[in-house]
């Protein structure tokens, strides 16, 4: 998701500069804005496949004679910071993708244009992923709609891992630790800053991130017995099953995996395309994978729960919204409509992401174990606390920092207490 960060940022920055000049030519909006113009769509990261981007651009320009659509790619790093200022400025983009857990920071502060009830019905209504619709609502109104949901699965290569996938979370932990004992081998890969993969361990053991107390304040739950049990298990894996850097990020996972030194790799399902890519990238900006070795026979399973079945995993994904400051709302809406159309969403589903519409989930390829694992995991997906302040917890990298301490061998109860006090001070601040 964050590969070539520097390049992406630079490219995005220069694009923004270049496009800024064109976009400001549009007249000020009185109602729906001008009937022709240039619509700027901000997509984040590389998750949206090129096929979908091309489809969006072509279809939009066919439907809106005389208008053009430009996609400007943003980076996940520092996205909240960037949107805070970019969407408030006079040169705001028209349609923006935002992480589902970040959406409420903007919906609650008037950054997005409201999607009326009629428009909501036209765009899919009750067929839209309910959890993501909720993430984009504020005080009963719709502001950001689902774009796609990511899903996580545990990847492995049968060349390196023998036997059946583990049936429970404890078996999974034991299997990973056994593989680590072989030496110079990571039973699983756990870079210290990776908090997405940590949440299932908290939830499965009965802990929670934060829940509203009776008086309306938020109470963090990492120090609960369940939270401590989860954190202990996490630290055990970080120290006794993984050779990943203690302060590393969850980026470019295909690199260590392709070295053949990783047993289980829990990652977003789209990572498969990076892993089984050819060794020599076909395009100049391609990233080398290992399609002829460990990527060739890639398998996956849904992370097992404590009592079997699929674990509750973090429901990552994106929402899509129209910027309040868009000067051409009608055109922006027309782009949004294409992005939530069945055709567009089927392309999204085709690469293994969970589409924004429930009725299209059958379009996720199921013929191999990866697609099946992704859909199974998505069924048990959970969200972060539903408060606009959660985006600040993410922006401050609270969990990344504290999990880094765990990976470094710090005392679990101390870390748990620190996480709780930080989260509470932000959410209740």
């Amino acid at each position, binding site marked *: 998701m964050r590969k070539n960060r*520097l390049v992406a940022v630079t490219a995005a920055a220069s694009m923004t500069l270049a496009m800024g000049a064109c976009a400001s030519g549009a007249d000020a909006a009185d109602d729906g804005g001008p009937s022709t113009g240039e619509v700027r769509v901000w997509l984040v990261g590389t998750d949206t496949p090129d096929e979908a981007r091309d489809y969006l651009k072509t279809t939009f320009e066919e439907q809106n004679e005389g208008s053009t659509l430009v996609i400007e790619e943003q980076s996940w*790093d*520092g996205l*909240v*910071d960037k949107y*805070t*200022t970019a*969407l*408030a400025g006079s040169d705001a983009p028209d349609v923006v993708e935002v992480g589902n857990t970040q959406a409420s*920071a*903007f919906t*609650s*502060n*008037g*950054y997005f244009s409201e999607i009326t009830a009629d428009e909501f019905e036209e765009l899919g209504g009750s067929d839209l992923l309910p959890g993501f619709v909720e993430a984009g609502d504020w005080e009963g109104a719709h502001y950001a709609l689902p774009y796609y949901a990511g899903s996580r699965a545990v990847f492995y290569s049968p060349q390196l891992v023998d036997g059946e996938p583990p049936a429970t979370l404890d078996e999974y932990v034991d299997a990973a630790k056994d593989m680590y004992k072989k030496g110079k081998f990571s039973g699983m890969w756990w870079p*210290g800053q990776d908090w997405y993969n940590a949440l299932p361990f908290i939830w499965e053991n009965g802990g929670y991130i934060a829940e509203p107390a009776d008086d309306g304040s938020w109470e963090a739950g990492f120090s609960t017995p369940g939270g401590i049990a989860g954190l202990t298990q996490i630290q055990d894996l970080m120290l006794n099953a993984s*050779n*990943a*850097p*203690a*302060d*590393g990020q969850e980026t470019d996972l295909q690199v*260590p995996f392709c070295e053949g030194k990783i047993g289980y790799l829990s990652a977003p399902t789209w990572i498969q395309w990076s892993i089984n890519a050819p060794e020599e990238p076909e395009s100049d900006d391609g990233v080398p994978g290992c399609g002829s070795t460990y990527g060739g026979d890639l398998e996956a399973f849904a992370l097992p729960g404590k009592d079997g079945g699929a674990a509750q995993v973090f429901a990552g994904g994106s929402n899509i919204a129209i910027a*309040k400051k868009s000067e051409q709302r009608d055109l922006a809406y027309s782009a949004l409509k294409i992005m939530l159309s069945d055709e567009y969403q089927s392309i999204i589903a085709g690469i293994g992401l969970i589409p924004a519409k429930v009725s299209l989930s059958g379009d996720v390829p199921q013929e191999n174990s990866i697609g099946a694992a992704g859909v199974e995991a998505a069924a048990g997906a959970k969200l972060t606390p539903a408060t606009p302040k959660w985006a*600040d917890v993410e*922006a*401050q*990298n609270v969990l*990344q*920092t504290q999990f*880094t*301490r765990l990976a*470094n061998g710090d005392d679990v109860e101390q870390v748990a207490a620190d996480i709780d006090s930080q989260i509470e001070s*932000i959410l209740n601040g």
Partner: protein
Amino acid sequence: MSSLATEPAAPPASVSSPPRPRRRRRLPTVPWLLLSASILILGVLTGYPVVRMLVMSFQEYERAQVMGMPAEWVGFDNYTAILTDSAFWAVLGRSILFMLVAVVLTMVLGTLIALLMMRLGKGLRLLVSVGLLLAWSMPPLSSTTIWGWIFDTQYGLVNNLLTRFTGERWFGHSWLLDPLGFFTILTFIIVWGAIPFVAFTMYAGLSQIPGEVLEAAQLDGAGAFARFRLVMLPYVRTIVTVLVVLSMIWDLKVFPQVYALQDIGGDRQKTNTIGVYIYQMGMGQGHFGTASAIAFVFVAIMLLLSIYYVRRTMKEEEL
């Protein structure tokens, strides 16, 4: 200085003379005209943001206010909040400590390189100058990224070499995780980037010292160190003062290097310096009011440093 503004015919103010009928002072138009462009630019680019920041520091200014909600006045609440926050003092103390170490290292190493350049032949001096210029012209973000690669936990050059030479396994050793390690690497990056300026300026200053003076000192039996301390340093004292104050300001407000290095690894809470702390508070969390208050306290500290510098240069000019 002040004589510039008065007419050349008028006698200097300090000379005591019988009171003359006071002539109406004409406003000197040409100097002001010449100044107007820079005043305008400074006013728009520096003056307005500073005033805006000061206003915001007395308001509750969050993301909603950025989108146009009216901001509420809260008096000194933002200031009380930060001045009673131990996190703020920790960040400030850390920044100052880092600044002190970085400035001392920069000055010492920069001066040594300047002294070296004085002794070098033409060809070698050119080589050193080119090397210094390259380091000086490297954008901070690029250099931080490259230093980050050098110390990379998994594939870094340092870990690779250490593994090769010590025979022990250094792969997976994180240099940034320990705050002390983080600041050591940060010091490398900052000092490495700041030395060229100090070295060039010191070289320019040192090479202006008349050779006879040094020769005389040598004949009088002064050793190399005594000559440096007793003859060369007094000659370049003003330059050293200016360099120290400028370095202090630069190292205190350092931002891109810390921000980028935190992205590479390390514990943000334990490695925040004042620049990134303001950024996180404002841009990251949307507390623009609090961030402005911190920034203003910071501006006050910087002003104290600058005033010393400005007064110093004024004095030197008067001499």
